[in-house]
């Protein structure tokens, strides 16, 4: 379970997040939605420690995350797949995965086997340089790399960006399946609200750094005001 309380984040004079508070329950998928500039990426970066907030608290399983270095937060079991995926192009697929498994003290062979089973394409290309992968394959690699460390909290920043609708649908299914065992908490940031809401349990809507709505996904889907103003979804 992760709880964010009264988070305030600034970039110089610009307030990116204002008094943001919400909870993401264990084992559930919480979507964070909103238009460009709403602060979604900033929220994830603050949780994983890349950005220090001006004020506020983030509690994850009894740990206080604010003020911790990103590498320490990662070692607590937080996996962040950043915007742009962060796949290291100069490494091979397997080296990227080895890097992911490095600090998590998991059995490498077993971990690799599990990820190759889940993403067969990666297994086929395991010795290739990541630069040669397509967009969808990179997304899978980034996710596999985060998953191989067996995180308890997974932060996904716009995983569907640049992907074809079919690939996006598959991706969302995979994320849904990951949470089937209820041991993994997922915070899913998406601009593509409809695909996210299809698999999310709860949703938080951000607008210009503030929380506009925080409710069960079904409720939000049904609320037509929200569609129009914040999600840009077709009627």
């Amino acid at each position, binding site marked *: 379970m992760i709880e964010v309380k009264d988070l305030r984040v600034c970039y110089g004079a610009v307030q990116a997040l204002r008094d943001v508070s919400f909870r993401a329950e264990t084992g559930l998928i919480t979507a964070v939605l909103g238009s460009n500039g709403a602060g979604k990426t900033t929220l994830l970066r603050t949780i*994983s*420690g*890349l950005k220090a907030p001006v004020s506020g608290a983030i509690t994850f399983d009894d740990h206080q995350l604010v003020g911790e*270095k*990103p*590498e320490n937060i*990662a*070692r607590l079991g937080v*996996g*962040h797949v*950043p915007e742009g995926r*962060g796949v*290291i*192009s*100069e*490494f091979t697929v397997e*080296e990227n995965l*080895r*890097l*992911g498994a*490095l*600090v*998590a003290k998991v059995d490498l062979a077993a971990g690799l086997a599990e990820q190759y089973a889940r993403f067969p394409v990666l297994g086929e290309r395991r010795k290739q340089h990541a*630069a040669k992968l397509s967009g969808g394959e990179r997304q899978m690699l980034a996710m596999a*790399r985060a998953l191989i*460390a067996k995180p308890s909290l997974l932060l996904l920043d716009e995983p569907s960006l640049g992907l074809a609708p079919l690939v996006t649908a598959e991706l969302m299914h995979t994320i849904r399946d990951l949470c089937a065992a209820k041991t993994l908490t997922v915070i899913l940031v998406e601009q593509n609200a409809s695909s996210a809401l299809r698999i999310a349990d709860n949703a938080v809507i951000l607008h210009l750094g503030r929380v506009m709505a925080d409710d069960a996904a079904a409720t939000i889907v049904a609320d037509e005001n929200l569609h129009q103003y914040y999600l840009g979804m077709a009627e």
Partner: protein
Amino acid sequence: MDAFLTSRIVSDILEGLTNGVIYGLIALSLVLIWRSAGILNFAQGAMPMFATYLGVIVFAGDFGYWPLVAISVAAGFVLGGTTERVLVRHLYGKPEINPIVVMVGFLIVLEAVAAAIWSTTPRGIPSPFSPIDWHLGGQPVALSPFSVYEIVTALVVMSLVAALFRFTKLGLQLRASALAPEVSRLLGVRVNRMLTLGWVLSTGVGTICTVLVASNFFTGLTPQVMDGIFAFGFIAAAVGGLDSPVGAVVSGVTIGIILQFVGDYVNSNAIILTALIILIVSLMLRPNGIFTKSAARRV
């Protein structure tokens, strides 16, 4: 066979090889720093020189050659790590010329302080390997126990570094920290420590190289001993590609051999000129180095 091995050409090749592995080692240490910190360390010859002085004069006394080497290398590790923490930390993210200028200043300070404390008179470091060339059928072969020691040591160090980077977890983290520091942090890599480690390793490699040079009977240890070697090492690294360890070693050895021929058949003063020409021509043809794998800068 004997005549062949003692011939002028083979002699030049062997001598060039001996010099070349030295250039290759320094080039390798430059590549290590470049890959881990994105900085071209102009003090890459001066820092190991200082560490060698520390080892020889301050700590070693009468302990014998191998403890002396070990202490110098240890001093090199410490100096490298300390320099990173104290000096270089402030320079990440600043304009590109800042670290260059600061390391150039550091170079001068180290040489001046070393000369002030220990004077510029060359000091000999007696090694257990004889510098006298072997003889085959009455003619000298351009190899002596000492030169074999140099070549073997250099090759061993290069292999160890290569193995470290390719096969170990530490090497993976070092490479990742250099290529993608933010992503590495997200994966739990202690990036700052890796940066320091990069400096520690590269200064260590440089110190081994300096010890080899300084224990050469015909050279000795002076504050300026690494100046010329740094220049040749830089040329080798630049020609091979600042981000390619293999390139550094291969160019170092090749350049060493070419220069030996130039010195023998033309004029010893033409050596550095040739090296300069090699550098200029190579950079005009392949600005990023011959063995480099770096992608073109994306707009």
